């Protein structure tokens, strides 16, 4: 019984030699790097399609490549390409001018259709319960450039029932806005440190505790959606140039058997607080279940709530030092529901290297309790401007569809 039960996951099992590998993949923020330690030679493709109620859509093709160089060393490459539109809201005229007005938004000066690419090569060493990894992230889009070295280390002890992991990353970013905002922007630095402690309690129970420290400085704004003052006059965005954040998260993974099939409930609760006054709580639950050999489904529910930054207002008097209309710095709550299906192709396909071994499909739907901007003035005051281009009686919605293929090489 046990053998048949284990076999249900054989074709998808990648990690597992070391608890450290598994735990870090579970808990740290760079799972690709750590999972590479437990993976064989694999090539995975994903295509993500995103849409939201503001008319934004985004296509992101991506792939990752894991190559086992030896029993101890492995190499990983992760590649993404974004093609996004509506990142700047369509505030100006559309389809006019020499470029059909597709290049720059007439009001904000931001690009309407934009591409971004990112690369993230990494190398992982794993031996006798120690997993060490390093990676070098690079991304570029017309107005943004980023470089980020990162490293992580984890080791098992207590007969490999306990894992302690630490991680470090430093971003060297440069933001050069276009159009009317070309004078703004600048360099941004982000340093993040993380520590994780995890413990296997029973053969089906894993507990984890993660702490993160994130420090940012430099140009931390995003000027394309400017705030307005009480007279409706557009202002230049201004936010503090330093920000420090702490986050603590607790995780519990509890497996169970439904007949002979393995399933699990995975709960993650995270508290976040920063020096701008934003505090947030995230509760994320995933329930996964095998229903056939090598095939499982997952359902997910996530609740997120944040307070706003201390300086964020819907309209400013003009006397304030800081002003922003960036929705990320305003209070809101959101709910996510999602589902995923992942199954193996027929085993005989594995004999042919060019045919995929697995496929998956996932959809997440998000509702956020921010309403659209009113069209006209309210009580004689100018309209609130938070760049939410849907009705004032409607909530923000977004959907993300992801399709994937995995080749075991």
């Amino acid at each position, binding site marked *: 019984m046990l053998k048949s039960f284990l076999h249900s996951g054989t074709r998808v*099992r990648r990690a597992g030699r070391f608890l450290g590998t598994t735990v870090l993949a579970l808990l740290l923020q760079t799972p690709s790097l750590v999972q590479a330690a437990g993976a064989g030679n694999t090539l995975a493709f994903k295509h993500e399609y995103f849409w939201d109620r503001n008319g934004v859509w985004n296509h992101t093709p991506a792939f990752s490549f894991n190559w086992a160089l030896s029993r101890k060393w492995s190499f990983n490459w992760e590649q993404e390409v974004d093609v996004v539109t509506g990142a700047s809201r369509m505030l100006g005229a559309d389809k006019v001018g020499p470029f059909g007005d597709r290049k720059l938004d007439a009001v904000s000066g931001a690009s309407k259709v934009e591409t971004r690419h990112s690369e993230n090569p990494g190398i992982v060493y794993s031996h006798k319960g120690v997993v060490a990894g390093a990676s070098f992230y690079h991304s570029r889009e017309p107005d*943004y450039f980023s470089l980020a070295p990162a490293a992580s280390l984890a080791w098992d002890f207590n007969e490999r029932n306990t894992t302690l992991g630490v991680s470090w990353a430093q971003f060297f970013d440069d933001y050069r806005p276009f159009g009317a905002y070309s004078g703004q922007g600048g360099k941004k630095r982000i340093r993040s440190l993380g520590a994780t402690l995890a413990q296997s309690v029973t053969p089906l129970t894993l*507990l984890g505790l993660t702490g993160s420290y994130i420090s940012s400085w430099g140009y931390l704004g995003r000027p394309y959606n400017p705030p307005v003052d009480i007279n409706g006059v557009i202002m230049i965005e201004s936010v503090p140039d330093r920000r420090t954040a702490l986050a603590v998260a607790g995780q519990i993974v509890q497996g169970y058997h439904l007949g002979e099939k393995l399933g699990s409930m*995975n709960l993650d609760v995270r508290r976040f607080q920063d020096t701008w006054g934003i505090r947030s709580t995230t509760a994320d639950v995933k329930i996964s279940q095998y229903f056939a050999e090598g095939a499982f489904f997952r359902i997910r529910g996530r609740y997120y709530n944040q307070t706003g930054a201390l300086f964020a207002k819907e309209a400013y008097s003009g006397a304030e030092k800081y002003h922003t209309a960036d929705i990320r710095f305003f209070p809101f709550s959101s709910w996510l529901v999602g589902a995923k299906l992942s199954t193996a192709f027929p085993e005989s396909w594995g004999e042919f290297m060019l045919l995929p071994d697995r496929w998956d499909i996932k959809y997440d739907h998000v509702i956020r309790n921010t309403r659209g901007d009113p069209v006209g003035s309210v009580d004689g005051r100018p309209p609130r401007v938070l760049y939410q281009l849907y009705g004032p009686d409607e909530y923000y919605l977004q959907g993300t569809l992801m399709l994937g293929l995995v080749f075991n090489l």
Partner: protein
Amino acid sequence: MKIPIPWKKSQRLLKMALLGASFGAGVFTGCAMVPQVEREYLSDPVMLRQEDALEGALEGHDFPRREGSVGGSSGSGGGCGC
């Protein structure tokens, strides 16, 4: 103008986290052992919070940049595709 900073609360949060980690380390190392042969399930994909690394990387971009949840994940650098 300097904005008021609720930093004392953050310091308290950090102290609580360190205390929790210390307590956890003490408790965890004293926990009953799970033999290696019985830990097979713990590395199964259905037991992993993020069994798909590439999916995790894409999600890490989506939450802070699309939904706007700055505190929901650590991803805050690297541009936004916008």
